[in-house]
């Protein structure tokens, strides 16, 4: 029997004939970047080649090692205060990831709880929670951040608080939607018929089925948190010295963009790589968990 391969209707794209290897679809970029980040974050001080705050004005604006005048002692060059960029980027990894971790755990926790309550019980509780969400969303996040930072003073805790305040609604809305549709599933009704209490239903029937969504949201949030922190830093309200964050480096170096492009580019690339990695991973997870897309 002659076997011919013809494209599926409508698609003018060539149909891949090669059998798919299962490794193909993996988010390689993310898998390459994330271990590096984790190593920097977990390795901590021990891995740092220099003191991230060790300033030496004599060393200001050393170019990266591969350029004329650069030295391998400072592979990515130094900033306006003569601090090693590589060291600071590595130190920044830790702060960025810790901020992201706190922000995700807290905003995710609050948002998920609120979303589950609203979605499951509906009615007044739902109305109340959704009004809170509306209120929160109708205040521009940066405005709130500004005012909060003015009250509390800028710094790590403020950044985390602002992100939590901003992002819980994100979780709440999505979780609420999911729970409302999960609630329609027969197994939730049947769990009630079986005599399960509300807590059991939350714990056993809703939460595990939300995990995929939450994992995707959390992964995507890593990138968003980093970008958000950078915006705060731009306004002078992000992470503060002596803590190091990429956003802070970026914001500080912007005045030297024409003198020392590397000082702004290196942390910028770190942000980009991390955000891309987290977004690609989140995207991949989303596709992976979605049975309709999984077959791709």
């Amino acid at each position, binding site marked *: 029997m002659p076997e011919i391969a013809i494209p599926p209707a409508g698609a003018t794209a060539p149909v891949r004939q090669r059998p798919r290897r299962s490794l193909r679809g993996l988010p390689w970029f993310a898998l390459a970047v994330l271990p590096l980040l984790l190593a920097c974050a977990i390795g901590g001080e021990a891995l740092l080649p220099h003191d991230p705050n060790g300033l030496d004005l004599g060393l200001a604006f050393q170019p990266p090692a591969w350029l004329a005048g650069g030295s391998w002692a400072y592979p990515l060059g130094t900033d306006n205060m003569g601090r090693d960029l590589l060291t600071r980027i590595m130190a920044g990894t830790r702060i960025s990831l810790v901020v992201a971790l706190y922000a995700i755990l807290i905003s995710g926790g609050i948002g998920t709880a609120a979303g589950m309550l609203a979605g499951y019980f509906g009615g007044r509780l739902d109305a109340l929670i959704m009004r809170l969400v509306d209120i929160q969303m109708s205040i521009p996040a940066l405005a709130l951040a500004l005012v909060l930072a003015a009250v509390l003073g800028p710094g790590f805790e403020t950044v985390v608080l602002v992100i939590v305040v901003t992002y819980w609604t994100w979780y709440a809305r999505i979780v609420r939607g999911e729970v409302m549709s999960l609630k329609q599933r027969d197994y939730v009704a049947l769990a009630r018929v079986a005599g399960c209490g509300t807590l059991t239903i939350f714990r056993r029937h809703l939460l595990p089925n939300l995990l995929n969504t939450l994992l995707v949201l959390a992964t995507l949030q890593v990138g968003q948190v980093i970008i958000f922190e950078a915006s705060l830093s731009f306004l002078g309200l992000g992470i503060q010295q002596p803590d190091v964050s990429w956003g802070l480096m970026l914001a500080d170096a912007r005045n030297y963009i024409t003198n020392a492009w590397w000082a*702004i580019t290196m942390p910028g690339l770190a942000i980009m790589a991390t*955000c891309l990695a987290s*977004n690609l991973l989140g995207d991949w997870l989303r596709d992976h968990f979605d049975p309709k897309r999984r077959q*791709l």
Partner: protein
Amino acid sequence: MPIARRLLHGLISILGASVIIFLISRLSGDPLALLLPADAPPEVIEQTRQHLGLDQPLVAQYLVFLRNAVTGDFGNSYRWQEPALGLILERLPATVELALAALAFSIAMAVPFGVLSAVYRGSWFDRFAKVFAMAGQAMPNFWVGLLLILLFAVQLNWLPAFGRESWNSLVLPAIALGWYPVAAQTRVVRSAMLDVLDSDYIRMGRAMGLPERVLIWKYALRNAAIPLVTILGVYFAAMLGGAFVVEVIFAWPGVGRTVVEAVFARDFPVVQAGVMLTSVLFVLSNLLVDLSYGLIDPRIRHA
């Protein structure tokens, strides 16, 4: 949901936002230190304090604020001695224009990207579109703004770097602001398109021999646009918020810049007027979106 109900919810949001912003902005410090010269004597300070009503208890201040706000009176800016509402209203068109332009840019990228990515899913284009879109999501918008200025204004001198003069001064800030949501929007369009392209009615259309372009750009797209349109209100709000930073970079005479500086200066009337107006805008845009997606989704129109 009936419009009256929506309006009510909107009002609640605005009111809630006002309480929050009012309270925490008052907690953020004393504006008098910034307002008066260093060596102002205490009488002047006290007098100014009374003059501005800052000697009242917080709740009383809020009630006065609310009563006046209803009539559009947010008080005079402490710094500019002009009515705060006027200051903000004057700047609002610029911010709305920027936010709309950014939104338009993001949609103009996301729709073709999303559609073509879905149609040619798994192709090089799909991957390119994804990386392009995600790049926007992976860069802080002030960095993008600076790079755009360096490239298109300083190096190439194609587009102006600042201000709000002609249409082309809108281009760079709109890109800096509008690139960020492209990824999310592309994803929405792409995944909706994938669903729609797999749907029975598209298959039916194909079985009826309708041209592919009609199926994709007319039949499928209108359906795939629905989820995008439903969240446009949220994106618009995000653009308004993002404008805070981009306006500073591009010296765009908008609300964001004014509010940022007002916060630093503890110029409460301006902060309140600015935030309240953005909230109103947010509520209105969501209302508009609610009303408008009845236009593309007849199921809603007839419900």
